[in-house]
């Protein structure tokens, strides 16, 4: 992977009408890497898009395969980096900058968009064959038989992961059972953690302001103990946002809120041993820490690959009132502890 200063680099910008064919490089440069890092941290995440349309990779001709993907740039990058040295067409749908899986769930990576994009790009004239390779995770939004009926193109569902595309194509568009399975390993979970943490600074700051105000009112001064007083809440956020996703399969119980509560209890136990705390303060802080870790763990359900809507309904119905109650009682006790 070079620095991308050479002639290979292609900017992914609008160059005219959507029926125009554009070239796109399979090389990932430092801008792509930096851009990917930024959106993982939630910076401009909803604006990281590629212009929809038909793109040529390598020396693609009328016999080359056509791969379909979403126009989230992180998705396009994941696909094209696997296509180095190959000659293929990339048909990029307009999914409003959303990845394949989520866009298919919303129906915007859908039958209608596939059909319309085929027509808008004159794909019938560009290639002689009538085969399309769609990512398997797009199947939630696309009815293969309806694409066939409307356009004559036969849909082949390719592998779940972009990294398996070369092997899939080399095998004559045949996927192994492994290529068809969604996995959710620790690396997959780790890359999602920054997006969990970036939600936290605002509520944390509000908590800090309240804590400082209470301590100033109670003691007419602000001592350094505010640091150790606040530390448990920062630790709670890191536990809920990073530790729980990382340790997900190891934590007991199926409801995420309970996984979060277990992690929170263990972490708070450690804090209790090293930080000086009165009984009231310990109970108040402990309840707040558990509420934070449970809530953040529950919010991670949407980032996973195995939760169901009916399951989430059950979990939220029971866990949310419990979390809010714990947070309320915890806040009152922790606040009262400042004055004792």
């Amino acid at each position: 992977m070079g620095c991308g200063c050479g002639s290979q680099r292609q900017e992914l910008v609008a160059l005219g009408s959507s029926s125009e064919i554009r070239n796109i490089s399979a090389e990932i440069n430092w801008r792509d890497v930096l851009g990917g890092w930024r959106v993982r941290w939630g910076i401009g995440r909803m604006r990281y898009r590629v212009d929809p349309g038909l793109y040529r990779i390598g020396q693609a001709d009328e016999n080359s395969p056509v791969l379909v993907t979403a126009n989230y740039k992180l998705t396009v990058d994941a696909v094209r980096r696997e296509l180095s040295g190959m000659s293929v067409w990339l048909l990029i749908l307009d999914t409003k900058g959303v990845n394949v899986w989520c866009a298919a769930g919303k129906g915007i990576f859908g039958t209608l968009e596939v059909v319309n994009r085929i027509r808008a790009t004159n794909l019938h004239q560009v290639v002689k064959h009538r085969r399309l390779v769609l990512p398997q995770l797009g199947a939630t939004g696309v009815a293969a038989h309806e694409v066939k009926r409307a356009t004559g193109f036969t849909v082949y569902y390719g592998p779940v992961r972009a990294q398996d595309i070369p092997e899939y194509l080399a095998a004559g568009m045949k996927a192994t059972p492994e290529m068809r399975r969604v996995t959710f390993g620790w690396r997959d979970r780790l890359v999602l953690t920054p997006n969990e943490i970036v939600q936290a600074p605002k509520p944390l700051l509000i908590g800090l302001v309240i804590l400082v105000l209470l301590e100033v009112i109670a003691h007419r001064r602000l001592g350094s103990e505010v640091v150790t007083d606040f530390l448990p809440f920062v630790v709670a956020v890191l536990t809920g946002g990073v530790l729980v996703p990382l340790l997900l399969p190891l934590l007991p119980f199926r409801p995420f809120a309970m996984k979060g509560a277990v992690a929170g209890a263990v972490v708070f136990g450690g804090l209790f041993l090293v930080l000086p705390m009165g009984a009231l303060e310990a109970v108040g802080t402990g309840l707040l820490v558990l509420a934070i870790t449970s809530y953040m763990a529950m919010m991670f359900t949407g980032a996973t690959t195995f939760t169901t809507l009916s399951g989430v309904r059950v979990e939220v119905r029971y866990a949310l009132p419990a979390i809010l109650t714990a947070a309320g009682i915890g806040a009152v006790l922790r606040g009262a502890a400042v004055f004792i």
Partner: protein
Amino acid sequence: MRYLRNGASLVLDAALCNGCGRCQEVCPHAVFAIEERKAAIIARENCMECGACRMNCIVGAIQVSSGVGCAAALVSSMRRGDTANPSCDCG
């Protein structure tokens, strides 16, 4: 990894099935197998109700109520007072 109520709403009408194998192809959790030229549910507990099988079943033999398994979407839909169809507008 498994969650709560996985695959609870998945229904396969074997009488309608033509054995084309699309459901097995699109399922990301290997819930289906083709046995004696008919689809069969072999791992219901792995199903996350994504709806890919129903969407791609040409004979309409599969029913499943799909939606986003996302507590954040559900909580924000509760705030709006409409929990029928939580949507993941976070992207």
